[in-house]
């Protein structure tokens, strides 16, 4: 019998180590795994590299991890949010590294890792500062930048519903980075409000098949 549900946030985060690369889902606050991020804070793992669209807002979640000095580097497209004080302070103090990646290239690089590919040629950023130091290649008369796969040690997700196989369904725009990050990490951990019976998620509408999911916790 397969049962990926674990009993606590601590159990869901078991084994995550200092220096881990964390894929943290969500777009702004929507679809973000706040309880799992709070759990990371409580756990106190440090020297983290966090991949996320933004770099935290307010005082919870990713912002709290940054405030506590646990994040070494953020890989994101747009660090600032409506309340960016945690990241701004760390950035100004030189306490955090920023790798800025065009938004679509973050998810495409993660998908590339998920799909077992070695890299791809992207038209995005050609002729700009964000292509500095990257290989540029002309293919069929058009210039592209070489982008490498981006893999996480851990993906932290938030789903609307989950079952014991780890099949997931998201709700509205909370889907965002969740399905891509689910596929791109060694360990994929999900918080969900609702565990449902196997088969309750329509097989035609499973947004993330359980093959990509390791642990589910209700939170």
């Amino acid at each position, binding site marked *: 019998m397969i049962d990926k549900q674990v009993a606590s946030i601590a159990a869901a985060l078991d084994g995550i180590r200092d220096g881990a690369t964390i894929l943290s889902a969500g777009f*702004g606050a*929507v679809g973000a795994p706040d309880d799992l991020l709070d759990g990371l804070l409580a756990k106190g793992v440090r020297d983290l590299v966090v991949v996320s669209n933004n770099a935290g807002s307010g005082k919870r979640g990713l912002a709290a991890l940054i405030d506590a000095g646990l994040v070494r580097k953020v890989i994101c497209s747009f660090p600032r949010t409506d309340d960016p004080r945690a990241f701004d302070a760390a950035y100004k103090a030189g306490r955090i590294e*920023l790798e*800025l990646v065009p*938004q679509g290239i973050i998810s495409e690089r*993660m998908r590339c890792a998920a799909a077992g590919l070695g890299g791809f040629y992207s038209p995005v950023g050609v002729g*700009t500062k964000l292509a500095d130091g990257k290989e540029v290649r002309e293919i069929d008369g058009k210039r592209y930048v070489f982008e490498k796969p981006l893999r996480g040690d851990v993906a932290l997700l938030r789903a609307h519903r989950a079952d014991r196989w780890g099949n997931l369904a998201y709700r509205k725009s909370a*889907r965002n980075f969740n*399905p891509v990050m689910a596929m791109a990490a060694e360990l994929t951990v999900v918080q969900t409000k609702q565990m449902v019976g196997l088969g309750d998620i329509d097989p035609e509408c499973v947004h993330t098949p359980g093959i990509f999911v390791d642990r589910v916790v209700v939170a």
Partner: protein
Amino acid sequence: MTPLSRPQMAWRAAQDIDNGWCVNLGIGLPTMVSDHIPPGREIVFHSENGLLGMGPKPAPNEVDPDLINAGKGLTTLITGGSFFHHADAFLMIRGGHLDLSIMGAFEVSERGDLANWTTEDPNFPPGVGGAMDLAVGAKRVRVLLEHTTKDGSPRIKAKCAYPLTAERCVSRIYTNLAVIDVTPQGLIVREIVDGLSFDELQQRTEAPLKLANDWGPLVPKLAH
């Protein structure tokens, strides 16, 4: 001479959107474009966080915290809309599936280079968001910007001074003074606000302009 207000600029850009187009509107002024679509045209708005068929802001009783737009404001989905994940949202952008991207800009160059992501202000960390993806990916990229900076310096330049978002991507420029096309023959002025001469427009523009044979007045049919 009365420059267009910001809503009037958005109104003008909206007139050029054809029925059936899939359109991404950038954060800020471009968002207003959706308020001015001419009646009878059905437009599908795309949001890079994973929506097609984005509707207007929700009424208080429609608010759903799981339904936001790329600017992280609350939004709605119209009938026929759909949700998808982020990599698919950007496949649509990068793969040429959007008919139109409308963005704001700090500067545009004579050949359509776009600078709209950073002013390199040392007080803030830079952010790029989806601007570079949209600039290279959409079938058409049109920009909305004030014709000059607050101190009167031109923002349509021979060469952009700010870091580029993408090269040779902009095809049409809407300012508070004019509508200008970027063409292989250079910048062609299509419309100028009443009371401003072509020469006066050129004085406010660093890049050389040409006046279209069929140019006309830029008359917003929307109160200032």
